[in-house]
């Protein structure tokens, strides 16, 4: 017992002195305990650490929603903007100072509904911005309304009879808009998030990270942890991420494979 206690204490000290925590802001995340966003937070932080990016050279532009609150939970420059407008603001930041590493972060409502018109043009501009779309198929911050990626029949307070609209597939949209780097990831697997981010941050151009996550507070039936964990799996062993038409065909067939789905060479 004593030994393991000492080991634990040593581990804590190691973490504290390693500087790994310094990327976290002094204000702790206010997300619900168990929210998928914690996993993404960990994945992104590790990528920043592993790439040794100076924190003051990073700008995190975030939208409105639970995902948008990311701006306050990281020790980087951040700009918490209006609902849906991360990508235009990130465009301005990156063009103004290309030396900055720029992240844009928002939810599925932010990026597929109100701000859905910006993704195609961001892809067209192909400016070196890293966009993380937290897809929980739910409006979290406004307490549980369906999002554009909610499956047909989603029941909420504003859709008591279930939704009739077909869900959007963010990854497929990203590919069809001509994104030069696209990854589909899962909040329950921070390690693969880190790996994909490292690759995407290094990519010279727009990088799109479509991240499945869960809103455990408001979603009790669709994208729950159990549901996602059961289905999510890595891309096939021999998957070729340089072939756009194959990538699109794959995405149409498989809703839950994760990894770097396309990288324009």
């Amino acid at each position, binding site marked *: 017992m004593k030994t393991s206690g000492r080991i634990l204490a040593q581990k804590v000290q190691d973490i504290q002195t390693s500087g790994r925590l310094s990327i976290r802001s002094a204000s702790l995340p206010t997300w619900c305990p168990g929210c998928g966003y914690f996993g993404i937070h960990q994945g992104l932080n590790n990528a920043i650490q592993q790439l040794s990016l100076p924190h003051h050279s990073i700008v995190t532009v975030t939208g409105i929603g639970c995902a948008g609150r990311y701006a306050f939970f990281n020790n980087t420059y*951040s700009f918490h903007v209006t609902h849906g407008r991360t990508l235009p603001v990130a465009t301005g930041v990156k063009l*103004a100072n290309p030396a900055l590493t720029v992240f844009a972060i928002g939810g599925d409502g932010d990026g597929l509904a109100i701000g859905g018109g910006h993704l195609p043009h961001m892809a067209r501009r192909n400016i070196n911005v890293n966009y993380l779309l937290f897809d929980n198929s739910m409006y979290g911050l406004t307490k549980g309304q369906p999002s554009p990626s909610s499956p047909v029949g989603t029941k909420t307070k504003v859709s008591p009879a279930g939704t009739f609209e077909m869900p959007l597939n963010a990854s497929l949209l990203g590919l069809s808009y001509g994104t030069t780097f696209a990854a589909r990831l899962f909040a329950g697997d921070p390690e693969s998030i880190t790996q994909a981010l490292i690759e995407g941050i290094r990519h010279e151009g727009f990088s799109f990270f479509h991240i499945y996550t869960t809103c455990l507070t408001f979603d009790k039936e669709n994208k729950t942890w159990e549901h996602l964990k059961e289905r999510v799996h890595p891309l096939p062993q021999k998957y070729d991420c340089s072939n756009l038409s194959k990538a699109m065909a794959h995405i149409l067939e498989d809703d839950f494979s994760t990894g770097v789905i396309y990288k324009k060479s």
Partner: protein
Amino acid sequence: MPGVDLTIEICGMSGDGTIAAGTLLNEALSGAGFSIIGFDSYPAEIRGFGRCVTRSRFGTSRMLALSDHTHVLISLDDQQAISRISMLGKNAKVLFDNKPAGTVQEGMSIAAHTAPDADLYGMPFTDLASEAAGTTRGKNLAALGCFTGLAGIDPRFFYTVIEKKFRAKGETVLNANLNSFNAGLTYAHTHFEDAPLVITAPAPEKKKVQRIMLSGNAAIARGALDAGLALYFGYPITPATPIMEYLAKTLPQKGGKVVQMEDEISSIGAVLGSFYAGKRAMTATSGPGLALMAEMISLGVMSETPAVIVDAQRGGPSTGLPTKTEQSDLHAAVFGGPGDSPRIVIAPTDVAECYQFTLKSFELAEKYQTPVIVLTDFFLDNRVENVAAADISGKKRVDGNIYPPKKEQGRYQRYLVTPSGISPRALPGSEGYIYPATGLEHTEAGLPDYSEPVHMQMNAKRHTKIRQALADLPPPKEFSQKGPLDLGVIAWGSSFGAALEAVLKARKKGLAVGALKVISLFPYHEEQIRQFMSRCRRVLIPELNFQGQLANLIGHLHHGDVVRFNRTTGTPLLPSEILLKIQELLQKDNT
């Protein structure tokens, strides 16, 4: 000798070279030393087919507005020009293309339509051009030659500008144009010996003032360039697009970029992002675009991020009257957007001010960390004036940014409450000053906080800051005698010139009237405006909108009568109609 004050119109079908002729005419008259204000109108909707008109008012004293009447009409296409006859003043001169008998349809010559008092000069523009240059394309130049001959203006002023315009196109083109011009000139000299239309050029200025012919939009673009603009983001819309076109040609040469965005929301978003990261950026739009920007402008207010937005007003509401002039976005510019969101709104009144205040707006945006809206309109954007080169250059570029001191490294508070309301702003990339910027109400550190004291304190901070800006904003300018006035005319934007001209004319008639030019619309110089008003028995506010939006904004500062004079017909206000209103008001007072 009375001063010259004449208005010339050239009218033709698109393809006749109407606009080119108007431009040459303006340049040549400017070279001759006249003051010019010119305003073209082309086919209202899709360009390329229809009537083209250029209107130039020129004279020996400074031209402040358009005039009521045309003194000389040059018709390059009678069918089109017939519609301009209603603009002719008494004893107007009409120069038209005298085609051989039988080639003109019955009733289609302008000669059959003009009033009996008009002087008609039928001159064979087309034939002169084709004889002189082997092509009819130079008929616009032949017409200019005819006019020059009739007016007795030194043709060298035209040679200079023709050379300048056509030199680059090669000797053949240049000569063809010169020959066409000369053919017209000779024709006028030989057929109308004692030049019936003598226009005496002003005596050459003692110190030669270099003048540049410039539109309001070009002046805005040049102001932005001289301010060190790095990035322009925009979405095409009439009448703002020429600013983007001008910058697309010029900004890349200076290492900057022009990016056409997907809409106005993203345009202002990128402008905010750019300023946030420390580079000067701008967007220009019109009412519909300004409406879309409202939420982002208020993000700029809340997050205290600079931005420069040009709102080139057109007729509204909604898509409205895209090619008509109006001053109806004042409320939207000053008040648009969620919450109490004070920002700076300035309205230039002439072309030189378009340059000066655009340039200044970047410094103001940085210093006060706020969106600045430069409010222009279709008339001001598109009119040309020959401004003194000194008025549109040589202005110093001032960095308005206030950076945090070194000692704050490590404990920097982005939204520190200070007496001036201005908190030093660190730029991303600087070590030791990391902070969140946000559109949520926040503490001094930038963290979300909706508590009562914080919101009160921060609202007060943002308003204090904008009030401070008054000291840096152009104050109202008064044009009047000292002492009490029977009437004070207060105007803004492109309408001010007409108001001033009306007031100057009224004063010549012995009336006790004065004019006040209000440039800064928000914040506005309450004290100075009140002082002026307190000397006026009545106040008249003429503006091109239906409600009287400036009157709504500042009318409460006057204890007495505030008379609104509003017109929304899509055309600029004229001095004569304001003068008439002044006389009517003062007459009423006397009876």
